[in-house]
């Protein structure tokens, strides 16, 4: 193992090269770095403006975006700590660093819109309206959890909120999101579905098949690739020959859009356009958000890893989505530092309450083991 690690370190230049480039790109185009990289030949073209649009979102929207991000961050920090303390069984893949993506996308969705998530799924659920109590209860394996404790972190889901599950299978989500989009089109409603997936997942055949079908049937679906530069311990340069996953969009016949995934407004705008297109019958979009996970693939430890440098992590943290957005909220007079701190404290209290609730909750009963394997009429 030690030898393997040495080798991983030696491989680093390639890794940091890729990520540095992404960093530079997103830093250069400050507030809403976004470009259409590929247009489908016949798919309707997005009118993408440079920078944030004039008619900005309301203060309520800004606050809501911030609240989502902060709730995710604090939930994940706490969950990670609990895992390290041995209170949560299994493995947690934490979303810290990527909050802007889930928040910016979910701001446009109602409970009637579907999403599919990934193994790194807590953030998507929180942004979709997931409550701390049943979420922690699920992570603790208690019967009060969203899945009665039977799914855990990797399968956490809530149908009422339009959340079709985290997924233990990389690339498992996109075909399901495509199916949900088909269902929306079939029923003639205006709901959309969003498939979240990683840069690593973009190499699964399932993702290509789902994207092709969504484009072919012009389904109300948005494929959101959260490119955090790594699939487990392999840098993007070690798993695909391209830098921008959005390049693949033209091959599917849908627009491809890249945005700065560390800027919640950039995500909000790019996602808004893609979702609007999907809702209005314009078909799917591949939206790539350049982002970064601060922690390790599993658990908390983010620094001192063999497969990436601490400098790289620091560089991304400088662009932290929550920090920069809070500065902006203060500048715009939307919220004061004091209000932000109070909100943070309130979230903290809510978390502690939820953890007590979860740890006081009962485990599923032995009888529940064989429940819900099948749908049983009248049960």
């Amino acid at each position: 193992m030690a030898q393997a690690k040495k080798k991983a370190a030696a491989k680093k230049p390639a890794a940091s090269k890729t990520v540095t480039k992404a960093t530079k790109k997103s830093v250069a185009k400050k507030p809403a770095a976004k470009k259409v990289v590929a247009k489908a030949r016949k798919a309707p073209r997005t009118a993408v403006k440079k920078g944030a649009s004039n008619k900005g979102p309301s203060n309520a929207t800004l606050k809501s975006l911030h609240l989502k991000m902060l709730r995710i961050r604090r939930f994940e920090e706490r969950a990670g700590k609990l895992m390290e303390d041995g209170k949560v069984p299994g493995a947690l893949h934490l979303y810290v660093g990527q909050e802007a993506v889930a928040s910016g996308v979910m701001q446009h969705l109602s409970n009637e819109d579907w999403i599919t998530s990934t193994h790194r799924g807590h953030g998507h659920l929180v942004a979709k309206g997931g409550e701390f109590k049943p979420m922690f209860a699920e992570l603790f394996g208690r019967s009060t959890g969203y899945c009665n404790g039977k799914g855990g972190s990797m399968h956490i889901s809530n149908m009422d909120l339009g959340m079709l599950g985290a997924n233990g299978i990389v690339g498992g989500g996109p075909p399901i999101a495509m199916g949900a989009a088909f269902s929306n089109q079939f029923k003639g409603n205006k709901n959309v579905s969003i498939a979240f997936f990683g840069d690593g997942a973009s190499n699964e055949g399932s993702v290509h098949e789902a994207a092709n079908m969504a484009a072919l049937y012009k389904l109300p679906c948005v494929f959101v690739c959260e490119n955090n530069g790594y699939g487990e311990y392999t840098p993007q340069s070690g798993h695909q020959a391209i830098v921008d996953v959005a390049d693949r969009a033209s091959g599917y016949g849908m627009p491809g859009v890249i945005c700065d995934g560390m800027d919640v407004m950039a995500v909000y705008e790019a996602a808004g356009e893609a979702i609007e297109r999907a809702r209005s019958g314009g078909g799917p979009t591949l939206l790539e958000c350049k982002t970064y996970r601060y922690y390790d693939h599993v658990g908390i430890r983010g620094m001192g890893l063999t497969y990436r440098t601490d400098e790289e992590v620091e560089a991304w943290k400088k662009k932290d989505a929550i920090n920069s957005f809070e500065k902006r909220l203060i500048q715009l007079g939307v919220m004061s530092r004091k209000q932000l701190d109070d909100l943070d404290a309130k979230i903290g209290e809510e978390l502690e309450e939820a953890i007590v609730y979860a740890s006081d909750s009962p485990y599923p009963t032995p009888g529940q083991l064989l429940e819900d394997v099948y749908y049983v009429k009248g049960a």
Partner: protein
Amino acid sequence: MSEAKKPEPRVLPYVLAINEGIRTVLREQDDSFIAGEDVAAAGSVYGYCGGLLDEFGSRRVIDTPISEKGIMGLGVGASATGCRPIIDLMFMDFLGECMDEVANQMAKMRFMFGGKATLPVTVLTMGGAGGGMAAQHSQSLEAWLAHLPGMKVVMPSDAYDAKGMIISACRDDNPVFVVLNKQSLAMSMEVPEESYEVPIGEAIVRKQGTDLTIVAFGRMVHEALDAAEQLKEVGLNVEVIDARSVQPFDTATVVTSIKKTHRALIVHEAVKFGGIGGEITAQIQEEAFDYLDAPIMRVAAPFSPVPFSPALEKLYIPNAAGIVAKVKETLEL
């Protein structure tokens, strides 16, 4: 590692025995390489590929994208054309992603081609529950594979067998799945440094006994041996057979044992319905019906996906206590 004090028996954990098995093969066979997700730079998520990249270089120790269809196809295509690939499928559950390459290509190609193609490919994969990894990272799907004519499937229960079976599998000119167990990674025992084979298709009697024969698969062998110890205390002497190979299955060793004990209990971690235990039961009664003094019994997982909650996962996984109870039931005690 290589300079251990000579006379002392060398003890290795399962995880390092796997490593040594792969290493031995890569040293012995120039046409071998190992490919899989995070096997090279990271040394595999389980650590069993540690150091391989350093010793053999990136031509033979290959990190792949997360593309199981592609990875398994690589194994099929490369083995049919002169290589001896070792393919690493991180979790057995991911078979779902590549079952066509496994079931319709790898297993059948030689037959379909009238014997003109040979596929010396070995797939290493990891099964088993117990770590709170939930429904998609905990399954025991060996029956899926054993159902495929053309496929061989082994389940090493300890470090010695892990190394020896990997070597045998890689020397075999057929596709072989080596189904490893993630709860066994730290289990240590004496493992010879030299190259050796553990024959594919041969079960082994782990404990002699006279009252009942337990046939166990993979990690369940240890639960069965535990149960055998507990049963000694109540005056019962059971025989424990480690099946080791699922396909081909060593019916002869099992039947010989049953002719002595007249009772049989099959133990596996996979779901009971459609599990390999049903097949073994049928084979025993076809070949040794007249020797049986009791119905053949099974201890296996209930018919449910693997639950996440530790409270349920504990109930789900077959254990020594359950085996003891079932043995007593079989003996009408």
